[in-house]
């Protein structure tokens, strides 16, 4: 983990979830390897039994006229244990397994997928994918172009200490109920809900160029929400725990000390209910990493997707205010603003060793001293920006969220580089005469070119004369992306850096979900603060 240690200033607001990662290795070792878990877990994989069918799919595709093909055997397991108040609400496990075959024929992409794994179905699948590619090729204006990469044979397991599937659901539910009860013990708390989602994603990738990559990833997402109700005044307020989702095993949940923190979450919910309404207007805000990560995701993550900037997502997620032609010169913030993309970051939800094009993952600079210097790219996008960035084979950002999904460019972990002077959250608060400290993820919304955004949070402290003065409620901040990143005038140091993340970053048609993390220290901004309180009804 690039960040450890406890946030200074107001420890009650930040559960200490940052943990060190176990060591490991990737085979073969890349330049900057993400550490691997126990590779022996792959030896007993049921996917191996279907490897010959995947190879058959590649052969059939080539025979049908494909110039390139890759086959992914993908097995997902998901588990969700959720509780409400003192009882279980649901235990659900799901699994999904199938094959996705992607081809290039006559210069166009084709794809077909099925859970039916037998020779006859596989042959049909290949014919279908190639036939569709050939049909679409007639409408292509230029052929799809793949950057040349050397085919890899490799294996990787995401680092974890405890496989979540070895922990009985009852133990999980008991832990959540204990945490819920600890929040419910606070007077004024009416309801608590809590859950843990776990994911196990395993894939075996074969390509017609000879690549063979076997990877296994574990992700967990704990959550807890306390709701306080004041029936007399017709008011209620909810408070979420700020714990982050992680590429990790069950140990992340155990280490998070949910039960210890839950009472604080309950108290916060009650405090929120009685907090003072916010005064709208131009204000100084300090954004805690538990809040800022999502603002980074929306305002920097999405507009630096190259496909998006070039119009490939225009019909759904939108385009980008960043113009690829201005790579290297476009100013999107001041000189304190530096962003690094990194699919090797320990604990990062988008971390893996090779992407779904079979390209080795890496770490690269996206924004340097406030200037846009590079993009998120894949193997088939590399040639669109090569003359601007000099990057040969793309940045390994390809991902498909199921056997049945087409791999395309998805967001890597993108993080804000901490300041060099080692400031803490407390330093930022002390240096602020009049402001608001915002933590946690609230409601969020941003336009389809990523200029205008409005974000809320979970908890809001008014800062007066360098001290936390009183809690506020109904706070949201609204800004233009470029103004916002230009207004950043103070930033925390390495010790205050934290990762936040989401399981469900949406993009594409049909919609696909990507898990991604963003790290940052706390930082200070100038924004337009708005009240999210609706008109009280008569």
């Amino acid at each position, binding site marked *: 983990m690039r960040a450890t240690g406890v946030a200074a200033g107001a420890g009650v607001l930040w559960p200490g979830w940052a943990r060190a990662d176990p060591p490991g290795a990737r085979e073969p070792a890349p330049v900057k390897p993400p550490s691997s878990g126990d590779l022996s877990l792959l030896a007993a994989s049921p996917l191996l039994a279907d490897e010959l069918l995947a190879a058959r799919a590649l052969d059939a595709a080539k025979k049908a006229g494909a110039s390139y093909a890759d086959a992914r055997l993908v097995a997902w397991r998901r588990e969700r244990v959720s509780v409400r108040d003192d*009882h279980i609400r649901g235990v659900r496990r799901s699994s999904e397994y199938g094959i996705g075959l992607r081809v290039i024929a006559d210069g166009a992409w*084709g794809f077909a997928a099925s859970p039916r794994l037998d020779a006859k179905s596989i042959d049909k699948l290949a014919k279908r994918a190639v036939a569709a590619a050939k049909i679409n090729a007639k409408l292509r204006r230029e052929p799809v172009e793949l950057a040349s990469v050397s085919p890899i044979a490799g294996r990787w397991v995401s680092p974890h200490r405890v496989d979540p599937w070895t922990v009985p659901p009852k133990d999980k539910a008991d832990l959540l109920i204990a945490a819920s009860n600890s929040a419910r013990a606070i007077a004024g708390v009416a309801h608590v809900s809590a859950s843990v989602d776990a994911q196990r994603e395993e894939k075996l990738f074969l390509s017609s160029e000879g690549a063979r990559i076997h990877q296994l990833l574990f992700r967990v997402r704990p959550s807890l929400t306390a709701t306080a109700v004041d029936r007399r005044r017709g008011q209620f307020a909810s408070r979420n725990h700020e714990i982050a989702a992680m590429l990790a095993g069950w140990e992340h949940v155990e280490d998070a000390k949910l039960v210890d923190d839950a009472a604080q979450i309950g108290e916060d919910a009650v405090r929120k209910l009685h907090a003072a309404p916010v005064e709208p207007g131009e204000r100084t805000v300090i954004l805690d990493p538990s809040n800022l990560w999502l603002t980074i995701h929306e305002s920097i993550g999405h507009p630096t997707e190259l496909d998006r900037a070039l119009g490939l997502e*225009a019909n759904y997620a*939108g385009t980008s205010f960043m113009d690829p032609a201005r790579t290297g010169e476009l100013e999107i913030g001041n000189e304190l603003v530096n962003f690094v993309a990194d699919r090797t970051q320990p604990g990062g939800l988008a971390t893996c060793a090779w992407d779904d094009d079979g390209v080795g993952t890496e770490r690269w600079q996206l924004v340097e001293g406030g200037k846009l210097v590079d993009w998120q790219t894949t193997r088939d996008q590399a040639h669109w920006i090569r003359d601007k960035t000099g990057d040969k084979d793309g940045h390994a950002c390809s991902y498909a969220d199921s056997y049945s999904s087409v791999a395309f460019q998805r967001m890597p972990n993108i993080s804000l580089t901490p300041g060099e002077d080692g400031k803490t959250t407390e330093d930022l608060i002390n240096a602020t005469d009049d402001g608001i400290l915002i933590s946690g993820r609230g409601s969020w919304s941003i336009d389809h070119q990523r200029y205008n955004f409005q974000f809320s949070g979970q908890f809001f402290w008014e800062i007066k004369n360098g001290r936390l003065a009183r809690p506020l409620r109904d706070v949201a901040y609204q800004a233009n992306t470029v103004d916002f990143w230009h207004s950043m005038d103070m930033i925390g140091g390495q010790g205050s850096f934290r990762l936040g993340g989401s399981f469900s970053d949406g993009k594409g048609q049909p919609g696909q979900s990507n898990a991604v993390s963003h790290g940052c220290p706390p930082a200070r901004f100038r924004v337009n603060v708005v009240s999210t309180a609706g008109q009280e009804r008569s």
Partner: protein
Amino acid sequence: MATLSERQAKKITDTLLGAAMVPELLVSVRDRSGGHVRFARNQPTTEGDVETVEISVTASIGGRTATAVGNRSDKASLEALVAEAEELAALSPVDPEHMAPVGKGAYLQVEAHDKATAKLGAQDRAAQVERAVAVANAADLEIAGFMSHREQSVAVATSAGAFAFASDTQASLTTTCRTHDGLGSGWVGVESHRGSQIDAERSAQLAAEKAEISHDPKALDPGKYVVILEAQAVADLLSFLVNALDARAADEGRSWFSHPDGGSRVGEQLFDTSITLRSDPADKQNPARPFTDAGEAHKIVRFIREGVVEKLTCSRFWADKTGAPAIPRPSSVLLDGRDIDLLELVGGVDKAVMVTRFWYNRVLDPRTILATGLTRDGTFLVEQGKITTAVKNFRYNDSPVTMLNNVLALGRPQRVVTRGGQVMVVPPMVVRDFNFSSLSDAV
């Protein structure tokens, strides 16, 4: 490839029910086969033909419940799935809110399967793309879009004797045209259970027209405006209200529908008298699923009648506890309108902002269902009954509750594009005092 017939689906649910060791089982199977194509920069980009299967088993013993979901339908896998659900259930704590599975019941007859739509393939998709791209090329515009189609079979069965089966089809096309300088954008979306409703040429023409008119927008000051919301924009906001129609949240004081003295506000006049919100899965033009994943029947329900709240959705547990009728979250949402063309609505207003659709909508305050989001892909100024200029996109901070109170006029309801599988048919609407809170430079 055809999806499961009723007989084939029943064979699977019978195998699952037959393998049960526990007293209560709820099982379902969903088999889907479909295809899609994306296009952008005036050419196809990616496409696919995809088959998916989802088999779900919920097992309960003594109030301990768990669900296991898989996608393999051979006998051994089905039996293993039941065993997994049973093992998980045995390990789970007792749920004091547990309800036994539903028993045998009647379901509405719904005609939602269209044979021609079930047969669509790569060639049909490409033909639509070709027509859409031709329109954009002729108009010297950039075009992007997405066409998808699918056939689906769903069966639900319980150990208490329920069996429900439905097969349906769906097709949709969304298109965006943009001017080459990136300063104009227009969007059109069509969705139906009949693929024949999709006409890429017509969609692209409308999107192109919007892109051209939306070019070079004028900035209006944020503030309260009379707005003409197209059906898609109405639906984008309305869905938050539909989600809030929950009896338990209301009774527990967690909702806009909560009464300050306890209980809910059912029976109160809360909206304009022109507002009637219904659900009808058997609607001929826009059929929807007649049962839930738990085998509960979706019935014809009137939630709001002439502005008065008549019903809220209510889980079986909460219904049992409170005596209210159990009403699942609806599969179809119909907001009544009047037989008036969108252009007639436009002709009838003196000054208004016309909105094609909203984007990135999020609830800010569940107490008031206050939401935020942005206008997108066609926002215009209407003066003296005519579209006079394009205006810059706005962020709004407003509530569907206010929208349904400030209605000035309703148009002809139409099917809109949704993401969650819910069928929504709503009218365009003229609404006063709609709150635009800031400007966005996005096009």
